[in-house]
């Protein structure tokens, strides 16, 4: 009887557990294959391609060694200079700096769109969303011209600036702010709280999961960006490259047959910082909201 009721109570959780386990396995399998592949000799991809695990004698650190072997500048060897630590630093500046700046201005804007009353508020917001529908591809060339006119060509600012005008984050954060009960705000206003106070004391704590989600997306986007980076900093000195672009150049410049090990190794390396950001942030922030709950 007792056991039965335990099962009855937890059947849902059990099913959830099994389904999630299966899905996670499916999602992870190729990734594990990829991570293993970064330690796999390129030849083994061909001769043992039908094996999930690399064969023993095909184990190699070549990919990683190649990536970290040329980090110091040697006179006359400029083409073999890959200052990975510089790139890491630049990437952090672009990804962290850009994301934080954007989070601030986007959260302010989202606050205005939800809690402030002004003429055409919703119309402006829908116009904002409307602009998202225009494919980004038509503004790529003009944006490049724009950056060059502002003097951001060949500079990290050229990577940060365009992200600040993004609509997606404002949209996302607003969608979360909308869920915050409006009477909470009204009450605070009655008590004479200023908008800034309301923003920091009420809206931010309740809506921070939105900031986390957007922060993660923004960081990831900036971190992994290669195409725009190539246009802006491709012609800049190597020390101003970002990690993603630099790794791409290393991989393009290697002999074609080696490139798979190298490409996977560089993917693993570039993935680590995002993984850290994600793992640290996920428990702190998403869970945090759940614990506070929305108290009324």
């Amino acid at each position, binding site marked *: 009887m007792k056991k039965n009721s335990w099962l009855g109570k937890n059947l849902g959780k059990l099913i959830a557990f099994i389904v999630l386990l299966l899905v996670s396995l499916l999602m992870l399998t190729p990734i594990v*294959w990829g991570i293993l592949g970064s330690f796999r000799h390129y030849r083994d991809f061909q001769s043992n391609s039908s094996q999930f695990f690399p064969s023993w004698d095909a184990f190699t650190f070549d990919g990683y060694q190649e990536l970290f072997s040329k980090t110091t500048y040697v006179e006359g060897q400029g083409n073999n200079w890959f200052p990975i630590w510089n790139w890491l630093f630049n990437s952090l500046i672009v990804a962290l700096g850009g994301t934080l700046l954007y989070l601030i201005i986007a959260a302010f804007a989202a606050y205005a769109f939800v809690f*402030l009353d002004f003429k055409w508020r919703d119309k402006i917001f829908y116009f904002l969303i409307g602009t998202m*529908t225009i494919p980004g591809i038509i503004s790529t060339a003009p944006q490049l011209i724009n950056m060059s006119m502002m003097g951001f060509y060949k500079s990290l600012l050229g990577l940060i600036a365009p992200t600040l*005008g993004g609509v997606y984050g404002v949209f996302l954060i607003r969608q979360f702010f909308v869920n*915050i009960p409006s009477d909470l705000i009204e009450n605070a206003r009655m008590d004479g709280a200023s*908008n800034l106070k309301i923003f920091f004391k009420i809206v931010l704590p309740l809506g921070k999961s939105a900031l986390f989600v957007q922060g993660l997306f923004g960081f990831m986007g900036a971190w992994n960006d*290669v195409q725009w980076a190539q246009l802006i900093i491709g012609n800049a000195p190597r020390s101003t490259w970002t990690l993603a672009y630099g790794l791409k150049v290393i991989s393009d410049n290697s002999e074609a047959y080696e490139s798979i090990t190298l490409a996977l190794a560089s993917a693993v390396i570039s993935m680590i910082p995002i993984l850290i950001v*994600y793992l640290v942030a996920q428990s702190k922030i998403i869970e945090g909201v759940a614990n506070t*709950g929305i108290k009324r």
Partner: protein
Amino acid sequence: MKQTTTLIEYATKKEHWKNNINKAGIVGFFLGPYGICFALFFIFPLVFGIIMSLCSFDGSSIYPSQFVGFDNFTKLFTNPILARDFWKSVWVTIRFDLIIVPLSILIPLGLALLISMKPPGYKFFRSCIYLPGIFPLTATGLILLKMFDYRNGFINAFFNVSIDWFGQTNTAWFMIGLFCLWCGMGGNFIILCAGLENVDKTLFEAASVDGCNKIDKFFHITLPAIKPQLFICLFTTFIGYMNLYGQLLILASNTPDQSEMKSAVFRIQDMLIGNSKGYGYAAAMGICLGLIIIVIAVVQLVVTKERKGGSKHEEKFMAWKKSR
């Protein structure tokens, strides 16, 4: 007559005026920084892009050389090859969207619901499901290419089949879909997870007291509560896949029937290679695609009828409860 303005009138007017300025100041403070960035880094290039669609190019410079009005747009309808290829690619894109967008929402929603039940190890599962999305697209694409290779791939060997996944139109689209789900649904998943975390738990308790079953709770509490998140997922996923390009470039470059594999943005990108003569057409195509997206998005908007107030769904819930 101005002279007859009384003191009181003057005072209230001034007060009003002051209030207005104050209000404008607050709005400016909150919206201003973003507004400036939006204008400089989003609207300006966009306007420039629209102007480019009205111009022709000399082939070497990325600056327009001549204003040609709506010529580029008319060509999209009148030039046989341009009309055929572009509209075909738009149709190919929409067709794919119709399948991938619902999947990219329903699957993450289901998974997020399972996560919200908090089974043992749910944090780990949540990370696993998001993990493929943080790998660079080129790397995940390479992994798929190698694993699904026709003669030497792990998948064909493991399941003992012989399918050229990337060599036929249907299987290639299947692979693109798989790629999009595998690496692309993590975003929606995270948004929905976060949305579900914010659902007011007291409502569930109230509902339990009233003896609602789980399905009722889902449709009348959970779903309305995460509607804003569902809306943004739907909207941005739809736009995202209308702009499908990278996944195709990585996986389908060797698929023989390219006309069946090219999305709208792929066609636009094709216009940009070689020299700048195609820039005008590319911009015009981009705007046409944008208009199509707007039309479909507005239909979505009307159908889903997004709401503003946070407490609305609770009122609705109360009303629904009463009606029982």
